[in-house]
Structure formats: structure tokens, C-alpha cells
């Protein structure tokens, strides 16, 4: 009997050891990843790096136009996706009484979320650049990014709307408000934080994407601020891609790390803002 217990004890010790080792491995990878981004990145950051244009195919100079290009594209994407996400979420919550349509819409959104980012680029290249003949254009890139973040934005808005206590809407309806008035006076203000959070989370994802925009919206060098809708821009992710492909050149790599740190900073900024707004607005809305 005592022997049996001992075996189980040993097994438990092994189990505990494996658990700790796995966690330590994950922790090690985590520290390594964040550490290398921060350390390598800070090594090449300076005020000039932020505010000067790239020179010598990115080997020297800074990334001002890349930062502006990235921001321009994701902000445009957010502006494009806002009305669509809002409308679809309200439709789901207030007008869609048929389970079949609900099912189709939900599955479509999950499918949209599942589509690999590179195939968005492929779709954009076929549909916009070639069939609609727009040429390489930052605006097409923004449209594609908007499609990419659509599911996130709709889901976040929908969840915020679904969380509104039903009595709110029933009371409003009992006071004689029409459905459209209920939506405008109750549903929208009470779920505003969901829309904003969804958009910001979408932005955080969109700004880091390379694959969807590299065929259709960007050029590597010689690009400044676009003057029209159908010009290419330069973005941080595609800039990093070009530099990373010259990985034998230490100067290019150095600048790639600097650009990466800025990119990660922007992603973290958008995500942080999303969390802040979620906690702020949702607690205010309930009072």
C-alpha cells in the first residue's frame, strides 16, 4: 500500500514540475520578446527618428511619413466602419426578429473574422485595384482594413446593446416612443462605450496589419502625404517588412527595430485607450 502511495506522490511531483517548467518557459519567451522589442527599439529611437522622413531606402532618416500614413489609413478605416457597424448592431438587436437571418448574419461575421489577413489583400487587389480599376491607393487599403475590423466593431457594439436592461427600452416604449425614438434616445446613448471600444480594439489590430495592405495601398519609398484618394502611402508595418528583408544590413535592421517599437507603442496605445473607455463609459452609463 505504501509503495502505491509513493508512486502517486512521485507522479504529482513530476506533474507540478512540468507545470512550473511550462510557465517558466512561457514567462521566458514573454520576457525575451518584450525585452528585445524595447531594448533594440530604444537603441534606435531619437527625436529625429520620429520627425524626419526616411532616406536611403529606409537605412537612415526617420519614419514620419510612415507614422502619418499608418494613422491616416486606420483612422479612415474607423470612420468608414462606424456607420456600418452601428447599423448592423442595431438591426440585430432591434429589428431582426427572424432567427434564420440572425443565424446567417452571425455566421457571416464569424467567417469574416476567420478569413486570413492575406486573403483580404488578395480580395482588395482583385476587386478594387483591378476590377474597379482604382490603382494602388491608400483609400482602398482603408476600405479593406475597415472590412477586417467590421466583426470586432459589430460584436462589441452588439454586446453593449444586449447588456442594456430590458426595462429601459420597455419603459421608453410605454411612454409612447416609437421604435426609432427608443433606439435614438435609449439604445444608442446606453451602448456608446461598446462602439468606441470595438473601434479602438479594431484600430489596434488594423494598424499592425501588413498582409492586407501590402499589395494594394503602400509604396516603400518616395512617398509623402497623399494629395488624393488614389495615391499610395507608406506605413510602419510595410516599412518594417522592407527593412527586415535587408537583414544583412545592420543599419536597416536597426531602423526596423525603431519602427517596430513605435508600432507596438501605437498598438498598446489604442488597446489601452479601449480598456480605459470601457471602464469609464460603461460605469457612467449604468448610473
Amino acid at each position: 500500500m505504501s509503495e502505491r502511495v509513493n508512486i502517486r506522490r512521485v507522479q504529482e511531483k513530476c506533474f507540478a514540475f512540468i507545470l512550473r517548467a511550462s510557465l517558466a518557459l512561457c514567462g521566458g519567451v514573454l520576457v525575451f520578446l518584450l525585452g528585445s522589442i524595447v531594448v533594440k527599439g530604444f537603441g534606435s529611437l531619437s527625436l529625429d527618428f520620429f520627425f524626419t522622413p526616411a532616406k536611403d531606402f529606409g537605412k537612415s532618416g526617420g519614419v514620419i511619413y510612415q507614422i502619418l500614413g499608418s494613422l491616416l489609413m486606420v483612422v479612415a478605416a474607423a470612420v468608414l466602419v462606424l456607420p456600418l457597424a452601428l447599423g448592423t448592431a442595431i438591426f440585430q438587436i432591434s429589428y431582426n426578429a427572424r432567427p434564420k437571418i440572425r443565424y446567417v448574419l452571425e455566421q457571416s461575421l464569424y467567417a469574416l473574422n476567420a478569413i486570413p489577413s492575406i486573403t483580404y489583400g488578395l480580395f482588395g487587389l482583385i476587386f478594387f485595384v483591378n476590377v474597379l480599376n482604382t490603382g494602388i491607393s491608400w483609400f482602398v487599403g482603408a476600405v479593406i482594413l475597415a472590412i477586417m475590423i467590421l466583426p470586432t466593431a459589430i460584436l462589441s457594439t452588439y454586446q453593449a446593446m444586449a447588456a442594456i436592461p430590458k426595462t429601459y427600452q420597455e419603459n421608453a416604449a410605454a411612454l409612447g416612443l416609437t421604435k426609432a425614438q427608443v433606439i435614438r434616445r435609449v439604445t444608442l446613448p446606453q451602448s456608446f462605450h461598446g462602439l468606441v471600444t470595438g473601434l479602438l480594439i479594431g484600430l489596434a489590430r488594423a494598424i499592425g496589419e501588413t498582409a492586407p495592405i501590402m499589395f494594394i495601398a503602400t509604396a516603400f519609398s518616395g512617398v509623402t502625404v497623399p494629395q488624393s484618394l488614389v495615391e499610395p502611402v507608406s506605413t510602419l508595418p510595410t516599412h518594417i517588412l522592407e527593412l527586415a528583408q535587408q537583414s544583412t544590413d545592420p543599419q536597416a535592421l536597426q531602423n526596423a527595430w525603431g519602427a517596430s517599437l513605435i508600432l507596438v507603442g501605437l498598438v498598446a496605445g489604442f488597446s489601452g485607450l479601449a480598456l480605459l473607455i470601457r471602464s469609464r463609459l460603461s460605469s457612467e452609463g449604468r448610473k
Partner: protein
Amino acid sequence: MSVITLNPPSSRKYRFSGTQAYCFASAALSILIVGTILLTLLVQSGPILLTGNADIIGTKWNPSDGKFGILPMLFGSVFVMSIAVSIAFPVGLMAAVYIAETRSSKLRRVLKSTLEILAGIPSIVYGLIGVTYLNIWIADLFDLQSGRIILTAGILLGIMILPTFLTLTEDAISAVPVKYRENAKSLGLYRHEVFLSIILPKAKSGIAGAGLLALGRALGETMAVMLVIGSLDRLPSPLLNPLSSGQTITSKLGREVTESAFGSPHFSALVFMGLLLVLITIFLTIASRYLFRQKDQHV
């Protein structure tokens, strides 16, 4: 589900308000977008499917000969994904068990938020890390000329899907009610026995769902893989040699789409691979949603 059933007076019942029209249009457009994407990919991959002599299911990819065999890419995608999964799943599962079973909620919160940061790192940055470090380490370790091989891509991808898999698995394990654990422990079971005979069966479908979702991400990942895989359009020889260069569907698309003329068989073959990828990932996502729903019913 909160459709308001209290209707306004019947005179207004059939008036189509502006808000309503706007919402219907939005929803229709959302569905239309998904349809358009799938249809566009399908139509564009038509030409290559209709030409009989392109050897789509072949091992030779040579646009100048008109040979577009997609097997090397398909195999590369599956191979890289398998390496990634065999690294990420065991490590992720074990770490998730530790995090879920620890009674320190503070540690749990810290770990979860760091994982979310990691999941938010853009894939191009992972690619840069692969190019700068992993590449060179692997080359040194196996004494190779270049570290741009399938193994490097697999390891990098494993690191990339680890945060997603870990968080979702942890959620699934945490969702098992505490009373099961307490009962099992009071019966004198050791921790590993509690895990193997109680937690694992209970959290099974949630963990499987997390796994499928991570698989989908691994298959669709482009930038990091493209930078470290070496872009060689041949099956590795011997077939299961992870130390040879390779190509995945995504890295192929990333490298070649701009080189092929729109409307050519070459382009069409690339689009066909993209369509395959989309269908596989959509299938994986739907399957994982099904499993997550199972989890909700059981627990």
C-alpha cells in the same frame, strides 16, 4: 434577443422609418461583403480549375511551363502548422493549468494582461524577431548555411499562437466549477489526478475549441512565416525533414501575388490557394464555435 414587442399604433406599423432603412441596409451590406469576398475568390480561381493541364494537384510549381502544382505549399502549410502546434499546445496547456489552478488572483490578472499584450504584437514584429535572432540561432544550432527553414517558421509560429491558445484554454479550465475540484480533493486525489480525471474531461471541448482557433490563426499567418521560411517551392526531401527550406500557402501569396499578371493562369492559381485557405480557416472557426457552445452546455 431583446426585440421590442410593444408595437406603436398600427397606423404607423407599415411605415418604413429612416432608422429602420438604415439598419436594414447596414446588415445587408455586412452580409454582402462576405459574399462578395468569397465570390470574387471563386470567380478568379475559375480559369485555373477549368484548364485541364495545369496539374493543380501536382508537386511542380513552374509558371513558365504552365505547371501550378499546389502540393508543396499545402504540405508546407500543414507541416509548419504541425510544428507550431506541437510546441504551443503542450506548453500552453500546462501553463494554463498552472495559472487556472493557482489561487492567487493577482498573479492570474498580471499574466492574463501580459498575454493580451503579447497577442497584440503585430505579426511583422514577430517576423523581425525571427529574422534577427531565431534564424541565426537555428542556423548555428544545426550547423546550417541559412536558418530560413521550415523548423524556424514552425517555432516562430508556435510562439505566436501561444498567447491565444493559452488564454482561451485558461478560460476553459477556470470555467470548471470549484466544487468539482473540492470534491475530488476531499476524496484524496492528488493534483495530477484531479486534473486528469476531473478538469480535463470537463474542460475538453473548450480546450479543443481553443486549439482549433489557434490552428486557424497558424494557417493564416503570413508575415512572420514569409520572412523565415526560405521560400522554396519544392516538397522537402526526405518529406518530413524540418531542416529544409519550404513554402506555405500564405508565404507563397505574399511573395508572388505582385509578380503575377492579373487574369493570368499564374494569378488564378494563387487565388485558388487563397480560396482553399479561406475555406479551411472558416471551417476551423465554425467547428471551434460549435465546441465552445458545447462547453457552455456541459459546465
